[in-house]
C-alpha cells in the first residue's frame, strides 16, 4: 500500500498526533501500532499514553477517555510534544476532553457515529458541535475538522465476515489507524503482521481488523475529504540497530542484563501496582535467565523475600510505586542495616496516598532520600528517558552489589508507559558487575594464652568501598548472624555501645558518600560556554528541559543544562558546576524536592519550576520560565519568538 499515493504530498518536519476515545476503544493499541510503524520508518519519536485508572470507566464520559499521543519527526526530538497537530476523537467525550490542548489550525478527525444525543449529553454537550461547523462562532471554527462516520464505514467494510454489529464496530480503531497511516505515509506491513499474529486463533476477527485497516487507508486515498497527505522523512540517527521501547520494558531488560553481567540469579519479590506491574509481567517471561519472580501477598512480603534472596546470594529486586515504598520502608531499613544488595524500583505516580495511579509525578524523591527511621542513607538512581531505563537499572545494580546496599531506582509513569527509539547496546559494552562473595576468614585473633587463630567478621569493610563482605549461606566457616539491631564495627555482633553506634551511623553514611568516587563527571550542556543560567533536572524532565533549552538557544540566548542520573550521592562536581552560574532553575514534577536538596547541600539559591498535574512538563511553558530567568540574569529582555539561527539548521524549535 505504501508509496502509491496519487494526491498532493506535503513535507513536514514533525507531527504530533493524539488518538483519543473511550477506554474500551483500543486507543492505546492504535497509538502503539502507529508508533511502531513510525519507528520502523525511521522517524525519531516519543509517546505519551494517558488513560484512566479504571479498566472500563463509565462509557462515553469524560473520565473514561483514554488517549495516546505520538510525536514523530525527521530530526532528534526530546518530548512527546506539547500540543497535538492532529486529534483523532472517537466520541464526543474524547473531543471535549482534548479540545483545549489543540492549537489553532489543528486537524480534528471525529467519528460521527458516536455523536448521538445520548453520548453528547454524557460528554456535557448541549448541542452537537459538528452541526455548527462552518457557522460563525463555532467551537470548532478554528480547526480543520473532518467529520467521518468511521464506525459505519468499518461495519460496512467488514460485513463479509459475518460478525455481530458490535464486533464489527470494534475494528473502527484499525480503520482510524489505516486512515492516519495513509495521511502520514506510514509503512503498513508491521501492523498487518501484528494483527495476523494477535488474532491468529480467531480468523474472522483477524480478517476484519486487517480489512478495516486497509479500508481506512483506501478511504484516505480515494475520498475528497483529505486532499493532501504528508511526508515526514526519517530522522538521521547514529549508526546502530534500533527498536522502539517503553520504559518499563527497558527497565525489565536492564534487570535481566544486571543478572547476566553479575552472574547472579535475579529474584524479583513484588506485589502488583500501577504503573509498575509490567516489570513483573515482563520478568516472569525470562526464567530462562535464572530470573525468579515471586508475586507476594503484599508489598512488605515482596521486599522481604527479595532481601532473603539477596542474603542467599541472589540479586534481590522489588518493584513498586510510591504507596508500596511506604509499606516497604522498614524492610529497606533492614537492608541498610544488614548491608545487603537490594534494588527498589519505584515507578512514581501521582500521590499522596492512592493519588493518581495512572499519572506521572516525581514527588517520591524525598521519600527515597529520607523515608526511613534513623540515619538510613540509600543511593538513588534515576533514568531520564524510556530507553535509558535499561542503563539506569544496570547502574543501580552495580551500586547495590558493589557497595552491599539497597538502591532506589526512581522511574515514573511517563517513562514507564512512554516509548522512544532505543539504540540497542552491544552486550560486550555493558559493565561487568563483580559480586566478590566472601570465601574465607578475614580476621586474625589472638587468645589470652597467645594462640593465634582466624575467624570471619561480617562487618570488616573493604578499604576502598567500605562495603562489608557478602558471605552466602553454604560457605563453610563463615557462618554469621546479621539483623536489624546495631552491629559492632567489624565483628558484627549486637552492640549497644554509644561510641560504636555513632561510628556505625557515620560509617554507613560514609559508605554511601563513597559511591560518588565511582560516578563519572557530569556532562554540562552549555554550547556557548557563556550561559549565566543553568537548568538542573533529574528523571523524566530531561526531554522537556532539553526541548526548552533548544527554544531559548534558537532565539539567540544562552542556557546550560545539567541532568542528574545520581540523586544520592550527588556527583562530586555538582556543587562546583552549579556555582559557575548566576541562576539555577530546577524544573520538577513536584513542589521542589531536588531544589530543597540542592539548596541545603550547596547553599545555591536554586529556583524551582514546579508542576504537579500528573502530566509531563510542557517544553514551551518551561522555555518561557527559562527565558524569564535568562532575562533576569542577563539584564536584557528575552523574546523567544525570535529565530536567530540559520534556517538550514535542523534544530527542533517548536517542540
Amino acid at each position, binding site marked *: 500500500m505504501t508509496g502509491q499515493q496519487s494526491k498532493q504530498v506535503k513535507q513536514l518536519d514533525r507531527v504530533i498526533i493524539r488518538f483519543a476515545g473511550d477506554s474500551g476503544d483500543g486507543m492505546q493499541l492504535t497509538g502503539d501500532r502507529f508508533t511502531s510503524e513510525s519507528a*520502523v520508518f525511521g522517524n525519531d519519536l516519543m509517546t505519551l499514553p494517558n488513560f484512566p485508572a479504571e479498566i472500563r470507566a463509565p462509557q462515553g464520559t469524560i473520565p473514561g477517555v483514554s488517549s495516546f499521543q505520538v510525536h514523530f519527526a525527521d530530526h532528534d526530538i526530546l518530548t512527546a510534544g506539547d500540543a497535538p497537530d492532529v486529534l483523532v476523537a472517537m466520541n464526543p467525550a474524547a473531543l471535549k476532553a482534548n479540545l483545549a490542548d489543540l492549537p489553532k489550525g489543528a486537524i480534528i478527525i471525529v467519528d460521527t457515529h458516536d455523536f448521538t444525543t445520548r453520548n453528547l449529553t454524557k460528554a456535557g454537550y448541549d448541542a452537537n458541535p459538528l452541526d455548527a461547523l462552518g457557522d460563525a462562532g463555532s467551537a470548532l471554527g478554528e480547526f480543520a475538522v473532518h467529520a467521518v462516520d468511521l464506525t459505519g464505514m468499518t461495519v460496512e467494510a467488514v460485513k463479509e465476515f459475518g460478525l455481530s454489529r458490535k464486533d464489527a464496530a470494534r475494528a473502527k480503531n484499525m480503520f482510524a489507524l489505516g486512515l492516519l497511516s495513509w495521511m502520514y505515509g506510514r509503512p503498513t506491513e508491521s501492523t498487518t503482521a501484528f494483527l495476523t499474529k494477535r488474532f491468529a486463533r480467531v480468523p474472522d476477527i483477524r480478517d476484519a481488523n486487517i480489512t478495516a485497516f486497509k479500508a481506512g487507508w483506501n478511504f484516505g486515498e480515494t475520498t475528497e475529504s483529505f486532499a493532501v497527505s504528508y511526508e515526514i522523512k526519517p530522522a538521521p540517527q547514529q549508526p*546502530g540497530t534500533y527498536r522502539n521501547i517503553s520504559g518499563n520494558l527497558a527497565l525489565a531488560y536492564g534487570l535481566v542484563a544486571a543478572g547476566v553481567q553479575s552472574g547472579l540469579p535475579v529474584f524479583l519479590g513484588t506485589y502488583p501496582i500501577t504503573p509498575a506491574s509490567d516489570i513483573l509481567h515482563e520478568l516472569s517471561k525470562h526464567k*530462562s535467565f535464572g530470573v*525468579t519472580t515471586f508475586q507476594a501477598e503484599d508489598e512488605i512480603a*515482596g521486599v522481604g523475600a527479595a532481601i*532473603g534472596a539477596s542474603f*542467599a546470594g541472589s540479586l*534481590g529486586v522489588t518493584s513498586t510505586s510510591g504507596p508500596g515504598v511506604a509499606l516497604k520502608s522498614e524492610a529497606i531499613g533492614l537492608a541498610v542495616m544488614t548491608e545487603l544488595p537490594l534494588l527498589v524500583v519505584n515507578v512514581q505516580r501521582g500521590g499522596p496516598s492512592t493519588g493518581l495511579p495512572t499519572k506521572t509525578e516525581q514527588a517520591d524523591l524525598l521519600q527515597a532520600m529520607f523515608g526511613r527511621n534513623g540515619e538510613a542513607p540509600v543511593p538513588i538512581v534515576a533514568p531520564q528517558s524510556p530507553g535509558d531505563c535499561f542503563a539506569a537499572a544496570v547502574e543501580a545494580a552495580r551500586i547495590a552489589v558493589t557497595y552491599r546496599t539497597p538502591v532506589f531506582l526512581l522511574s515514573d509513569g511517563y517513562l514507564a508507559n512512554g516509548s522512544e527509539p532505543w539504540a540497542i547496546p552491544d552486550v560486550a559494552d555493558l559493565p561487568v558487575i563483580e559480586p566478590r562473595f566472601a570465601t574465607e576468614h578475614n580476621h586474625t585473633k589472638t587468645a589470652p594464652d597467645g594462640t593465634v587463630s582466624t575467624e570471619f567478621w561480617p562487618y570488616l569493610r573493604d578499604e576502598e568501598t567500605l562495603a562489608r563482605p557478602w558471605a552466602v*549461606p*553454604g560457605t563453610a566457616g563463615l557462618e554469621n548472624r546479621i539483623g536489624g539491631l546495631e552491629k559492632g564495627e567489624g565483628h558484627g555482633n549486637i552492640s549497644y555501645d554509644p561510641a560504636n553506634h555513632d561510628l556505625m551511623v557515620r560509617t554507613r553514611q560514609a559508605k554511601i558518600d563513597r559511591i560518588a568516587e565511582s560516578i563519572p563527571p557530569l556532562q554540562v550542556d552549555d554550547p556557548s560556554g557563556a550561559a549565566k543560567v543553568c537548568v538542573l533536572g533529574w528523571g523524566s524532565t530531561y526531554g522537556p528541559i532539553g526541548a526548552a533549552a533548544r527554544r531559548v538557544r534558537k532565539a539567540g540566548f544562552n542556557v546550560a543544562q545539567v541532568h542528574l542520573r545520581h540523586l544520592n550521592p550527588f556527583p562530586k562536581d555538582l556543587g562546583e558546576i552549579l556555582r559557575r552560574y548566576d541562576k539555577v532553575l530546577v524544573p520538577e514534577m513536584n513542589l521542589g524536592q531536588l531544589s530543597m536538596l540542592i539548596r541545603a547541600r550547596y547553599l545555591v539559591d536554586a529556583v524551582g519550576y514546579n508542576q504537579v498535574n500528573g502530566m509531563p512538563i510542557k517544553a514551551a511553558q518551561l522555555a518561557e520560565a527559562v527565558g524569564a530567568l535568562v532575562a533576569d540574569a542577563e539584564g536584557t529582555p528575552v523574546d523567544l519568538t525570535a529565530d536567530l539561527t540559520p534556517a538550514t539548521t535542523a534544530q527542533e524549535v517548536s517542540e
Partner: protein
Amino acid sequence: MSTEQLPFPGLRSGVEDVPTNEDAQTAKEYTSDQEVRWCPGCGDYAVLKAVQGFLPQLGLRRENIVFVSGIGCSSRFPYYLDTYGMHSIHGRAPSIATGIATAREDLSVWVVTGDGDALSIGGNHLIHALRRNVNMTILLFNNRIYGLTKGQYSPTSEAGKITKSTPMGSVDHPFNPVSLALGAEASFVARTIDSDRKHLTSVLSAAAAHRGTSLVEIYQNCPIFNDGAFDAIKNNDTKADAIIPLTHGEPITFSAGTKGLIRDSQTGGVKIVETADVDADALLVHDALNPDPSQAFAISRLTEMGYLNQTPIGIFRQVSRPTYDDQARAQVASASEAAPGTPTERLAGLIGSGDTWTVV
C-alpha cells in the same frame, strides 16, 4: 485465563537437597559465642537447648542451615546458634525465609517467631507461607503475652486477661494457632511444650523431615509476664487430664485412658466422652495423614481458649503436597535448560528482539 497442570515432585524429605555432614556433630558446635540474654527461667532456654541438641542429629552441614527470626524475645534465637542467621523485622521472617528457601534448594530454613510476631503483626505472612507450602520449619513460641514490650496481651491471650494495656480485662478474642494454620491448609501442623524435651525433639525431627511449611506451636512459659500460663499441662498431678496426646494411628484417649474422643454427629466435630461409656471402636483414631483437614481442625477446637486446662498436643496434620519453592525452581530450571546459547548470547537476542531497524 487457563491453567497449567504442574508436575508433582513426589514424596521427598524436607532436607533432601541439603548437603550432609559425614562427621558426628555436637551441640557445642551449634552454640555461638554470644551470651544468651533471656530472663532466668524463660522457656526459651529449654527450646534453645533442645534445638542445639537436635541439629547435630539432623546430620546436615552446619553452613547450610539458616535461622530467620522476627522481633520479640524468642527472635533473639538465631544469635545463639552457630549457623547462618538473620534477626529481621517484626512479623516478616516468613517472607524473608520464603526468599531464602526459594532461591536455594540446598539450605535447611528455619523461622523462629512468637505469638505476637507470627499472629499479630506478621499474621498475613504466616498464612501465606502456609498456603504456599514453602519448604521451611516455623517454630512459633507461644507464651500468650508480649514479653519484650513488657507485658501487654497478645493475640493468643485469653479474653478478660488483665495486662498493662488491659486493666479492665482484654476484650480481644484470641487465635488458636493450630486452627489458624489448618485453616490456611498448612501441610504440617504440630503443638508441643517447651519443657518436654523428648516430645519437642520428636516433633522437630518430623517437622524437619517434612517437605513444605511445618508449623510447630511451642507452648512456652514467660516467668515474668505470664508465669504459670501452662501449669495445668506441666504439673504432674494435672497434666494427664489436661493433655490430649495425638499419635498417628492410635485411638485418642487421655486421663489415663478414662477419656477419649468420638465423632459428634450433631456438630460434625469431635467431643470428649468417658471411654467406659462407648465401644472401643467408636473412639476416634488419629489420622495425621488424612488429606482432609476437617478432623484435625475439629480436634484443634478442643484447645481451652481461656486458662489452659485442656489441649491436644502432638502432630495434628502431616500431608504431602507440592511446595512453592520446588515448583518455582522447576519452572526456572526447565526454562533455562530449554534455552540455547550462553546467557550473554541470549541477552543480546532478548534486547534485540521485536521490530528493529539498522542505521548504517
